[in-house]
């Protein structure tokens, strides 16, 4: 680059763009949620309804559930990738990353094909003779969980993998030399040292789960309404201030979860690994 006095100046075009087309709109939306004369009436209107409260409770419940289930599936896989042969690890990584870059829409469609009344699983089970009549799987909360876990799994696997890869193998050798058995080495060395990855992954998955829209809208049932869907519904009904109020609460919830761990930056590492 030219010998700029401060190369930080190169950020100006990007920052100007984001300020006008991103920060300003979000700010105006927040302003709208405050209502006329800072009455905060939209908040009152939005949260006075049983539906809104129910939707919030359901969303948080799903987000927590999805986070825990994802962690349960991701940790062993990440550990296996780190400890297996290089070729196997490369293959598994490719499989983890390919769906990551397939659109959520297409993946939701795939689950519709799999889980539907006339979907692959029902057809297969009927053909084998395990079931007589198709089981209802699509448009259930179960489907929402499956679809969300499928989308969010890589976001949990990558940070854990990166933490596990960062552990110095000599520490394990040292612990073994000092008399620790496999279980103690795992409990006292590997697990604590991989905790940053677990925490980063969990926060990321939880936060992303809070804002899910496409997957629950397509493969969930009418009872599976999440916050984002409620916001969209309010916008369609032209209840913009209420939509803004709910969005404001969702935004605060998201930022609070991130601030709690102070790891907003770690997403750079996670996605950097995924893309690079």
């Amino acid at each position, binding site marked *: 680059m030219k010998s700029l006095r401060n190369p930080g100046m190169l950020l*100006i075009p*990007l920052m100007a763009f984001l300020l006008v087309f991103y920060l300003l709109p979000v700010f105006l939306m927040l302003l709208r949620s405050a209502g006329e004369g800072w009455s905060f009436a939209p908040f009152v209107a939005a949260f006075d309804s049983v539906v809104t409260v129910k939707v919030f409770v359901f969303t948080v419940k799903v987000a927590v559930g999805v986070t825990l289930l994802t962690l349960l599936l991701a940790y062993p896989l990440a550990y296996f990738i780190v400890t297996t042969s290089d070729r196997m690890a490369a293959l598994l990584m490719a499989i983890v990353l390919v769906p990551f870059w397939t659109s959520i829409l297409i993946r939701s469609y795939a689950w*519709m094909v799999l889980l539907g009344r006339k979907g692959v699983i029902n057809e297969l089970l009927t053909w084998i003779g395990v079931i007589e009549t198709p089981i209802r799987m699509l448009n259930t909360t179960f489907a929402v969980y499956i679809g969300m876990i499928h989308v969010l799994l890589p976001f949990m696997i990558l940070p854990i993998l990166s933490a596990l890869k960062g552990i110095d193998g000599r520490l394990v050798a040292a612990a073994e030399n000092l008399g620790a058995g496999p279980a103690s080495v795992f409990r006292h060395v590997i697990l604590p040292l991989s905790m940053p990855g677990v925490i980063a992954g969990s926060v990321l998955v939880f936060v992303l789960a809070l804002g899910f829209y496409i997957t629950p809208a397509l493969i969930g049932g009418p009872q599976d309404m999440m916050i984002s869907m409620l916001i969209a519904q309010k916008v369609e009904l032209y209840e913009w201030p209420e939509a803004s109020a709910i969005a404001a609460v969702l935004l605060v919830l998201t930022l609070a979860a991130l601030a709690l761990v102070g790891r907003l930056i770690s997403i750079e590492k996670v996605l950097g690994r995924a893309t690079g």
Partner: protein
Amino acid sequence: MKRSIRVSGPITQTLLGCMAFAVTLFLIVPVLIIVPTSFSAGSFLAFPPPGFSLQWYERLLERDVWAESAWLSIWIALLVTLASTVLGTLGAFGLVRGSFWGQRVVLAFILSPLIIPGVIVAIAIYFFYAQMRLVGSPIAIAIAHTTIAVPFVVINVSASLQGFDRRLEMAAQNLGASHWDTFRLITLPIIRPGIFAGALFAFISSFDELIIALFIAGPRQVTLPLRMWESMKSSLDPTLAAISVIAVSISVALFFTSTWLQARAKRRTEALTETLVGGDA
């Protein structure tokens, strides 16, 4: 060689392997299942499969609306790629090379569109555009998409800039290269894989984007994801499978190209460091 952290015995490792196999199956099967669906002779996927047919691909070609949507999405994505690559590359230089107060906050702000729920970004932009009377133009969609595409460019270019040895630029200048020549002949070629990867993901992120388009596209801007969404809400037509197979193939091909390019660039620099650290043969 790096020492492994493996502590599991053969039995545990086998169990772990089975689990890993199951999880990866869970990840990949849904993506793969659309392939046979798209070649189905029936209107639904049935077992046993009713036979092989290209009817859904043919239907895709017959119906102009799909092609129109595809072109619109490609156009928007190209605009987004151009804008976000330029803005993001400059921004990455500013972030990595600059020193100013609040650098971390700026980085967090630039990356935030990736974590903040899509609906929030979408409706904020929708309200804003509605006030500015911008709703219903492809340019408007491209501008909004640039917001969510730019972080990918910043992440990738920053990563290659951080791995870039500034002494190469000093060497070039010492050998007589002007600032512009140094950038053109040394810096740019070396970080090019990073820029390329960023541009690629910027393209894909716009091409696949639904939520923002859902709110701000007018009735005449039906992007590909929008048309798929509409179609999905009405029926499980395997035309969708056909279009998905095409889209996934393109994404996967681009993904592997980028991975390959980055791996090649990495091999070069890593081998260089290794010989330096490892001494002479």
